């Protein structure tokens, strides 16, 4: 029997959609034991309801874990109601984990990607979006070797992030959020599901990144080489 240890970091616009779809898929897999850890230090508030679905107010990880464990009873669910930072990352991501990263800042992407570089076996799938377009990156390590470039290798904005984690931002900064489109979050979540199936189930490691654009109704996957 296979074991999947899945960690979903960020339960906002992308992550709250993504986890519902991933849970449904994983719940009905044969011969696979699944544990999912949901990670988010943020609380669900009514103002988020436009793009996010939670059954009640409260910490997103805890509320969503509670919602999903009753809907999908074949999956063991844990909640970590904390943000990722250089200190918490060790508790959150472990060897052989499949990490689904759906956060809203490059600083956290940098922290997670750099931490994954230190692991022997890990799968990191990271999604992000702007108003009407976005991308999903795939970072895979097996046996202590990179099979695809890390998140920062082709993205200087992640390699040297200028933004900050939610913990580093003031309440005023946190309360200001740029407009986002539910369908774009849905697009990013859907592509992350495609990538999950390709990488985790089919073990297809050819692609490193896929972009999508709602306005042109296009998506394009990229093959990248490992940088020296």
């Amino acid at each position, binding site marked *: 029997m296979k074991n999947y240890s899945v960690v979903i970091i960020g339960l*906002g616009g992308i992550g709250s959609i993504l986890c519902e779809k991933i849970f449904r898929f994983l719940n009905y897999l044969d011969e696979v034991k699944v544990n999912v850890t949901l990670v988010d230090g943020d609380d669900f508030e009514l103002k988020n309801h436009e793009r996010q679905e939670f059954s009640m107010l409260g910490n997103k990880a805890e509320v969503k874990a509670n919602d999903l464990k009753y809907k999908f009873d074949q999956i063991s669910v844990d909640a970590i109601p904390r943000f990722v930072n250089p200190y918490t990352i060790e508790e959150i991501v472990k060897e052989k984990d499949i990490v689904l990263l759906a*956060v809203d800042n490059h600083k956290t*992407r940098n922290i997670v990607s750099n931490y994954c570089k230190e692991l022997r076996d890990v799968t990191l799938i990271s999604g992000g979006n702007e108003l009407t377009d976005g991308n999903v990156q795939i970072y895979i390590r097996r046996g202590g070797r990179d099979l695809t470039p890390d998140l920062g290798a082709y993205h200087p904005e992640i390699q040297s992030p200028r933004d900050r984690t939610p913990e580093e931002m003031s309440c005023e900064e946190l309360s200001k959020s740029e407009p986002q489109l539910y369908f774009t979050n849905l697009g990013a979540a859907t592509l992350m599901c495609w990538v999950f199936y390709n990488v985790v189930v089919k073990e297809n490691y050819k692609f490193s990144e896929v972009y999508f654009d709602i306005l042109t109704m296009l998506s394009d996957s990229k093959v990248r080489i490992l940088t020296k």
Partner: protein
Amino acid sequence: MRHYSKVQLEGMTVAELRSKCVYELSIPGMSKQRKSDIIDAILERVGVAPEPVQTPSVTAIEASFQSTLTKPDARKGDKTTTTIRVSCGASSGAFDVAGKSVGAVADFLREVLNIDSLASGIVNGEHVNDSYVLKSGDNLEFLKPAGSKGC
């Protein structure tokens, strides 16, 4: 007397055509005629102007998808496609840009592929500078920054 093309006349309303017959062209008996009959009458009176040349609104991407280049040394009829795949984010296409520099291609395709002015070029997976000259078989990508939001 002004000439009209059939396309111009078909773009007018019946009332406009009838008015033209009465006040401009002095064509009698058109008050109860159908549009096609009125147009025929006008064309008979004024003569047919050449149809305006219809330039299809083909975008650069569409055009480039169809573009092929015959090699100068190719035999007669021996067409060889030497287009290069160029992409930026989700947009991509095959373009006839072999022999051109990455910087020139960026300028040429900036609007078509929505290439940021600061986007760096990657050829066959490796970073290159703007002066790199593209060769047949190259694959050029202009890096689009990763989406920053998601929560």
